[in-house]
């Protein structure tokens, strides 16, 4: 076995070792000062075997039964390169997305810079666009927010309606501290940052209308934005009968919080001639 053969075998051993539940088979090939370049944020450059262990574990959590297979490898100077394919079921969270339980096939490349037969630097590249598209579709179909966004946006809507109706103000759970609020409620029109702006809208609306009840009649959305349309019934001060008003709420979320909320109350009620 010549030197080139030995070093390209590192690629085969490395890819095979990724199929183990821990680093036990990788460690014998790792240089003590190993640096790993990975496409997964927030750390695209990972140093230290403990952090590299966490990186591998995050993939293993997302794809517990994932199996890597070497496609080809070659060596040029101190660099060894290979192509690989991995198959598995996404049964754990991946990036910011919950498990989809979908079968996926990932394709990527690895490059290794070797020092004295050990891997001193490693570049791990995977087609994330292709992977995420398999998992949930990178661009959702029109009318559908990302599944995760839909759930969070609906929670935000529920919290907002609950507060508007005089109930609990459970804003911290779903709204980002940096929430941007856009208000077009009657004559209260502003764009402000901060969850406290929700209180400003609540105070204004509840001072004008009492006995508030909101019913949602329709929802639509795209990407990470969901819009809910419905009716708000309530009683204006000095009014003999309850009024029916248009109610609109639009939420945009990032990660696990709503970061932007548009609220609009007033005008011609939705769906009424």
């Amino acid at each position: 076995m010549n030197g080139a053969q030995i070093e390209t075998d590192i690629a085969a051993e490395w890819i095979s070792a990724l199929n183990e539940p821990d680093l036990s088979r990788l460690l014998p090939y790792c240089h003590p000062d190993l640096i790993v370049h990975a496409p997964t944020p927030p750390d695209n450059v990972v140093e230290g075997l403990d952090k590299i262990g966490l990186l591998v574990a995050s993939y293993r959590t997302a794809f517990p039964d994932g199996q890597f297979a070497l496609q080809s490898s070659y060596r040029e100077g101190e660099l060894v390169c290979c192509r690989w394919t991995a198959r598995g079921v996404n049964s754990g969270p991946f990036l910011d997305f919950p498990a989809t339980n979908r079968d996926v096939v990932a394709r990527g490349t690895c490059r290794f810079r070797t020092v004295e037969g050990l891997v001193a630097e490693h570049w791990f590249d995977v087609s994330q666009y292709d992977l995420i598209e398999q998992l949930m579709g990178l661009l959702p179909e029109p009318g559908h927010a990302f599944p995760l966004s839909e759930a969070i946006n609906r929670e935000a809507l529920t919290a907002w309606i609950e507060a508007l109706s005089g109930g609990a103000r459970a804003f911290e759970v779903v709204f980002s501290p940096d929430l941007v609020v856009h208000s077009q409620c009657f004559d209260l029109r502003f764009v402000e940052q901060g969850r406290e702006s929700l209180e400003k809208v609540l105070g204004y609306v509840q001072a004008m209308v009492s006995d508030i009840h909101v019913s949602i009649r329709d929802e639509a959305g795209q990407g990470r934005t969901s819009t809910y349309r419905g009716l708000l019934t309530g009683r204006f001060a000095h009014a003999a009968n309850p009024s029916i008003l248009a109610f609109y709420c639009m939420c945009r979320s990032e990660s696990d919080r709503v970061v932007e909320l548009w609220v609009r109350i007033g005008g011609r009620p939705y769906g009424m001639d």
Partner: protein
Amino acid sequence: MAWTESLLPYTIEEFITAGEAERIVSLIEHYKRANPDRLTAGVTQKTVHVSDTMSLEELVAMYEPNGRIEITAEDLPSEVIAIVERAYFTHIEDIRRAYPSAAWPYGFAYVEYGPGQYFTPHADGITTAQCAGFGVALSDDFRGGEFLIETCGSNRMWVAGGDGMSRLAPGADVSSEWFRKLPRTEWAMSPRRGVAVFYGSALVHSSRPVTAGRLRKILGFVSKG
């Protein structure tokens, strides 16, 4: 608001489906049969155009000198508004990609042009409430009627505001001699049924006369904030 936003033309293809376009036309035809005396632009004492200095009759005569059918938001069947609003919210991130300050759609109207009818060049004007307008094409069975964006790099379109910001010059319509004489470049388009054409509120737009058939579309505006 960034000026680039107010000067941006944009399209969203398949904004509404063919079925939705047919449904809107069906609802409009039903309305037209039930309200034959409320169809001519201005007859209901309402129009999508706004002016502090002109009467409604003057506005209609200036913008649509050969007339058009116009059904404003107050009279539009609510299902028409529901369909267009839903299409808007279904494309909200596509819209905000071009107009980041876009919030709600409002001010819907149905307009219909027959042979010889068109509308004259104007810019809607930048306000604190509006960042763009849009038209949704409902029909393909007509000729002529091209929608025109008329771009103009002249400083004459702008004046300095008291706060140091530029403002669109007053009278950006054919009532002003300076505007009629201002050289502009026409960008002509014939959007197919279902396409929404957006135009920033500082963009001059107009149309060529319809030569055959009837051009039908829904107009709307995009509020900002």
